[in-house]
């Protein structure tokens, strides 16, 4: 091998290393960007917590103050009311808004014994404050018989709230929120959407790919079909979204759904996914040697039998990849879903109602008045973890199939 060739080879090789290096660096930078902002927020609670806080107002028919000792384990940043036996701290909610958080509540505290004053079925039921709640507004009469409002809504700090509590003569009512800011609802909605979209898109996409690759003769109709599908893959998501509300919405209306819904989102995503699935499946069908088709047909198998018994099994890893890509696409989509599923974060998503996926929740968080990088990044990390998990499991399945179906 001449020196020149070795150098030339070296340069070309260096180019591939460089390219992959760039790819890795970019990924690392994107990941670092996401992780630095979001990692601190990742915990299991977030996955199981609802997004919306419960809002409660409670009153205290028999209210007595007591004398409580500050427990030793409370940190310095926690203000403690000796009259009510409650420890408060300043915190930030999902919107980076200030909160007054209940960190500690003495078991004997009178604040355990409220009754609901919110109009509705729960009116009059017993309900007390609990640790983790957030005091939005607390109305009391102070020792001068003056009405005082404190709490997050009044921009009081924990310190100020405790000061007011320690000066209490009569408790009027407390408006508090339970913990919120979780992504449980969006997570569920995302999974519903993935499931439903795939159920619609995979059979159609795979069948269409089979038609194009196995049956279609090279004629004008087929060409038109092929170009149509190719063109479909170039349609921007935003157009898909608008198409969803105008073309597909009537279909869901026939099902008796009159709002945006996960079903509408899934129908729309199915259209988005079709070209991707078709292309990917076709690629993997093309790899199946033509000889196998001949062999099967010459044994008196129908084309359908050939497809199901010989071709599809060989193309299975490719189809799995298509599925994986589809899932990634669904998880990452926002523009099309904003229109078809809405932007309301539902804690108990239903197929016939609107909800947000994780990505749309990010979009909502980022396009609001005060972009929330931290929570967005946290959600992104969770998305990445989901995708990673899927990726690994699809790989494992593919590997097992490959082992069964071919030598290499």
């Amino acid at each position, binding site marked *: 091998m001449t020196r020149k060739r070795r150098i030339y080879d070296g340069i070309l090789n260096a180019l591939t290393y460089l390219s992959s290096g760039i790819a*890795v660096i970019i990924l690392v930078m994107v990941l670092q960007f996401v992780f630095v902002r979001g990692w601190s927020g990742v915990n299991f609670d977030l996955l199981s917590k609802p997004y919306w806080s419960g809002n409660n107002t409670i009153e205290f028919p028999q209210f007595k103050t007591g004398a409580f000792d500050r427990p030793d384990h409370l940190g310095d940043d926690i203000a403690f009311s000796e009259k009510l036996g409650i420890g408060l701290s300043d915190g930030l909610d999902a919107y980076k808004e200030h909160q007054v958080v209940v960190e500690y509540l003495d078991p004997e505290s009178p604040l355990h014994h409220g009754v609901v004053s919110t109009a509705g079925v729960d009116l009059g039921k017993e309900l007390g404050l609990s640790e983790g709640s957030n005091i939005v507004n607390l109305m009391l009469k102070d020792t001068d018989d003056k009405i005082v409002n404190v709490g997050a809504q009044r921009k009081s700090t924990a310190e100020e709230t405790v000061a007011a509590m320690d000066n209490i003569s009569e408790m009027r009512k407390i408006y508090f929120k339970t913990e919120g800011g979780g992504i449980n609802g969006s997570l569920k909605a995302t999974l519903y959407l993935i499931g439903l979209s795939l159920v619609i898109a995979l059979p159609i996409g795979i069948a269409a790919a089979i038609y194009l690759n196995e049956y279609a003769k090279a004629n004008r109709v087929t060409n038109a079909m092929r170009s149509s599908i190719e063109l479909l893959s170039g349609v921007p998501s935003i*157009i898909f979204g608008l198409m969803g509300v105008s073309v597909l919405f009537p279909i869901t209306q026939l099902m008796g759904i009159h709002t945006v819904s996960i079903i509408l989102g899934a129908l729309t995503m199915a259209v988005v996914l*079709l070209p991707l699935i078709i292309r990917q499946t076709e690629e*993997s069908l093309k790899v199946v040697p033509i000889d196998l088709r001949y062999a099967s047909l010459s044994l008196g198998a129908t084309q359908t039998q050939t497809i199901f018994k010989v071709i599809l099994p060989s193309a299975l890893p490719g189809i799995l990849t298509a599925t994986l890509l589809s899932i990634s696409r669904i998880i990452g989509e926002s523009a099309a879903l904003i229109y078809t599923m809405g932007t309301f974060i539902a804690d108990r998503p239903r197929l016939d109602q609107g909800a947000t996926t994780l990505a749309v929740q990010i979009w909502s968080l980022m396009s609001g008045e005060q972009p929330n990088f931290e929570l967005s990044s946290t959600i992104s990390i969770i998305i990445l973890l989901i995708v990673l998990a899927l990726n690994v499991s699809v790989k494992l399945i593919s590997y097992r199939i490959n082992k069964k179906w071919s030598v290499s």
Partner: protein
Amino acid sequence: MDSKHHLISEAYQRRKKGWDKFFKGLFWLAGFISAIFIILIIVFIVRKGIGPFLPSYPGGAYPIGKFLTGFQWRQDSAIYGVAFIVINTIISALGALLISFPISVLTALFITKIAPRSLSRIMTTIVELLAAIPSVVYGVFAAGVIVRWVDSLAAMAGFSTYGGNSLLAVSILLAIMVFPTMTSLAIVAINAVPRELVEGSLALGATTTQTNFRVVLTSAKSGIFAGLILGLGRAFGEATAVSMVAGNSMIGPTFNPFNITRTLTSTMLAGLKETQGLDYDIRFSVGIILMAVILVTNLGIHFVKDRIGRSMS
């Protein structure tokens, strides 16, 4: 010879042929459904998008000539000229491909043919992860990181930028966003190259590197170009992230990479949700233009591909 034919039931034969017909119909139907959507979309956009240029349009027709040849897009003064946006869109998307295409193909080559198996698994996973990051996150990344690179680069070149919001930032962003698509299709294509070809080349005294570049890439051409087209589609179609760094200029075209720009999708998106009347409907006209641009560039790529195919022979 004992024939097995007596074992074959007539009924099964009929059933099997029935199924064959049924499935063929089903497959055709699936293809038809998949293809029909583009028509629905086109009909839907065209119906809305042609409207503003018809005399019957409430408030009077907008002159189509001005729309197609205009070099200003000012919703505030109701001037809608799309020509410069088309140019900007094409420049930014081609810029993105210029950056991304070689990197994607070479990365795919690295993953499939060069890297040791464990590294290549990791790299594949990386590529797939990149594909799964929501575009909003890329937009945020671009608005937070890429614009700074561009800004410092511009400062070195002696330009002042709008905080890094620029044509170059858009192209870099799009390059990152289309990278996973193009790479994974290139990987599929390269993996499909028959082993005998590789052996044939090596046996002729080609080095592995020469084999990779001359035989593997050539044989994988059609799959690689499929990825290119898909990537281009994504580059044209991306809206949310792009509008975060494009700067959305009102005049153009933009040739200076450090200047702000405007793309067709960011135009369609800007304030879409809050608007109505002509300003709303004309976005569908932009949609038609966008589809046309995508179509024409696809044809262009096919042409180039054929040329490359021929010039290699």
